[in-house]
C-alpha cells in the first residue's frame, strides 16, 4: 500500500509530463494542421469547378492546388443582405486574415440569419466569365455535412458541386463524397425558377422528377439525402440577396 502523498505525487508528475509533451507537440504541429485543413478545403472547392477549369482535383499536387487557387480565384465575403464586406469588417467578426477562406461556416450558421457573413469564391474563367462558388453547410445523418456549389455566369445554372462529410456511413451516406456520380448530377440544374423565385435543388428519393431542380438520392441513405436537400436550401437562402444583386 502506498501513502496518499506518494499517489498524489506520482499522478501529478505523470500528468505534468504528459501534458507538457502533448502541448509542445500540439503547438509544434499547429501550423501544419491549419495548412492541411485549408488545403483540403481548397481542394474540395476546386472540385466544384473541376469540369469547367479542366482540372482533375484528385490527381494534382498540393503545390499546384495553391498555385491555381492564388492565380484564378478571387475571394469575397458577403452578408445575408448582399453587401460585400471589407477585410477589416471580416476581422471584426473574429476571423484573422479577413479573407473568405478564414470564415468558419459552422460558427456563422449558429448566428441569427441577419448577422451571418458568408464566403464567396469567384473563379475567373479563361473566356472572361465569372463562376461563383458558394459554400454549403448543414447536418447529415450523423454529423456535419458541407460542400461547394458553383454557379455559372447566369447566376442560376449549376456548373459543378462537391461534397464533404464528417461521419456519414461508409458506402451509404459517405457516397456523397466518395462516388463522383453523385455531385456530377448537379451539373446543369437550376436554383431559381422562371419567375426568379429561389427553389434550390432537391435530392429526391425514388429518382428526379423535375429535370431542372431535382437530382437522384443516394440509395440506402435517405436521411443523408434529406440532409443535403436541407443544406442546399438553407445555404442558398443565405446567399439569396447577394445573388439577386448580382443579376
Amino acid at each position, binding site marked *: 500500500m502506498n501513502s496518499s502523498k506518494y*499517489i498524489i505525487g*506520482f*499522478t501529478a508528475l505523470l500528468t505534468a509530463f504528459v501534458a507538457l509533451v*502533448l502541448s509542445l507537440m500540439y503547438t509544434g504541429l499547429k501550423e501544419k494542421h491549419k495548412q492541411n485543413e485549408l488545403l483540403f478545403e481548397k481542394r474540395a472547392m476546386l472540385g466544384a469547378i473541376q469540369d469547367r477549369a479542366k482540372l482533375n482535383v484528385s490527381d494534382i499536387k498540393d503545390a499546384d492546388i495553391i498555385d491555381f487557387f492564388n492565380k484564378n480565384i478571387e475571394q469575397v465575403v458577403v452578408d445575408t443582405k448582399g453587401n460585400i464586406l471589407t477585410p477589416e469588417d471580416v476581422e471584426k467578426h473574429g476571423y484573422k486574415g479577413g479573407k473568405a477562406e478564414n470564415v468558419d461556416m459552422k460558427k456563422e450558421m449558429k448566428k441569427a440569419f441577419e448577422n451571418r457573413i458568408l464566403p464567396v469564391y469567384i473563379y475567373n474563367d479563361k473566356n472572361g466569365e465569372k463562376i461563383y462558388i458558394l459554400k454549403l453547410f448543414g447536418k447529415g445523418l450523423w454529423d456535419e455535412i458541407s460542400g461547394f456549389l458553383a454557379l455559372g455566369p447566369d447566376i442560376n445554372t449549376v456548373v459543378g458541386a462537391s461534397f464533404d462529410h464528417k461521419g456519414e456511413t461508409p458506402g451509404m451516406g459517405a457516397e456523397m463524397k466518395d462516388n463522383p456520380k453523385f455531385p456530377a448530377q448537379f451539373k446543369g440544374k437550376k436554383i431559381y425558377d422562371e419567375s426568379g423565385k429561389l427553389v434550390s435543388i432537391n435530392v429526391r428519393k425514388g429518382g428526379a422528377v423535375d429535370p431542372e431542380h431535382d437530382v437522384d438520392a443516394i440509395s440506402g441513405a435517405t436521411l443523408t439525402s434529406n440532409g443535403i436537400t436541407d443544406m442546399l436550401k438553407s445555404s442558398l437562402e443565405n446567399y439569396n440577396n447577394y445573388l439577386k444583386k448580382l443579376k
Partner: protein
Amino acid sequence: MSEIKESKKALFPMTKKERKLLFDPLNDNNPVTVQVLGICSALAVTSMLLPSIVMAIAVTFVIAFSNLAISMMRKYIPKQVRMIVQLVIIAFLVTIVELTLKAYSYPVYKQLSVFIGLIITNCIVMGRLEAFAMANPPWQSFLDGIGNGLGYGIILIIISFFRELFGRGTLMSGTPIEMKIIGSSSDFWIDTTTNSWFGWYTNNNLMVLPAAALFLLGMIIWYQRSKNTKLVDIS
C-alpha cells in the same frame, strides 16, 4: 544452450519465450478471434483496406509503447490508481498518433476520424497492460505488444480485403496503387456490363455495412478452429 544456438544465426537473437510472445497472438492466442477483444473497431473501420492498415499500425504502435512504458514504471505505479495511470499513458500515445496523422497524412486522418480517438477504448490495449505489462519486464512487454497489435491488424486486413473487394470491387482505394477489380464501368478490370462471364455480378452493398464484418469474422473463427485443434474446447 538454445540461446547460444539462436544468437549465431539470427540478427535479433530471441529466446523461445520471446518468440512465443511475438508470434502466439498471430494465431493460437489471437486477440480478436480467440480472446474476442477489439471487435467494435474491427467492425467499424474495415470497409476499406487503407484505413484498416493505418488502424493496424496505429494500434500496434499504441500497444507496444504503452506496454513498454507501463512495464518500465510497473514497480512505481501505486496499485490504487494503476488503471488511471494506464489510461493516461494510452491516451497520451493515441493523441500522439492523432496529431501526427493530422499533420502528415490528412486524408487518412479524415477517413478514420473518430476511430483514432477510440483506440483508447480498445480493450486489447488495456487488457495487455493489465494482464502482461504490469507483471513482466520491458523488452518482453514490448514484444507482447507488437505481437498483439499484429494479431489484431492481421484480422482487420483480412476482413477489409474481402469487404472492399466484394462491397466496392476495388482494392487499396484512396492510394496511388488503387486497383479497380470488378464493377459496372470500363474503369474496372472486369467490366460487368461487357464481360459475358460476370454479367450477373453486382457489388454487394451488405459488405459495406458493419454487419458483414461480423459474418466474415465468424467465418474466420470457424476456419481457424477447424485448422487449429489446440483451440477446440473438448471438455
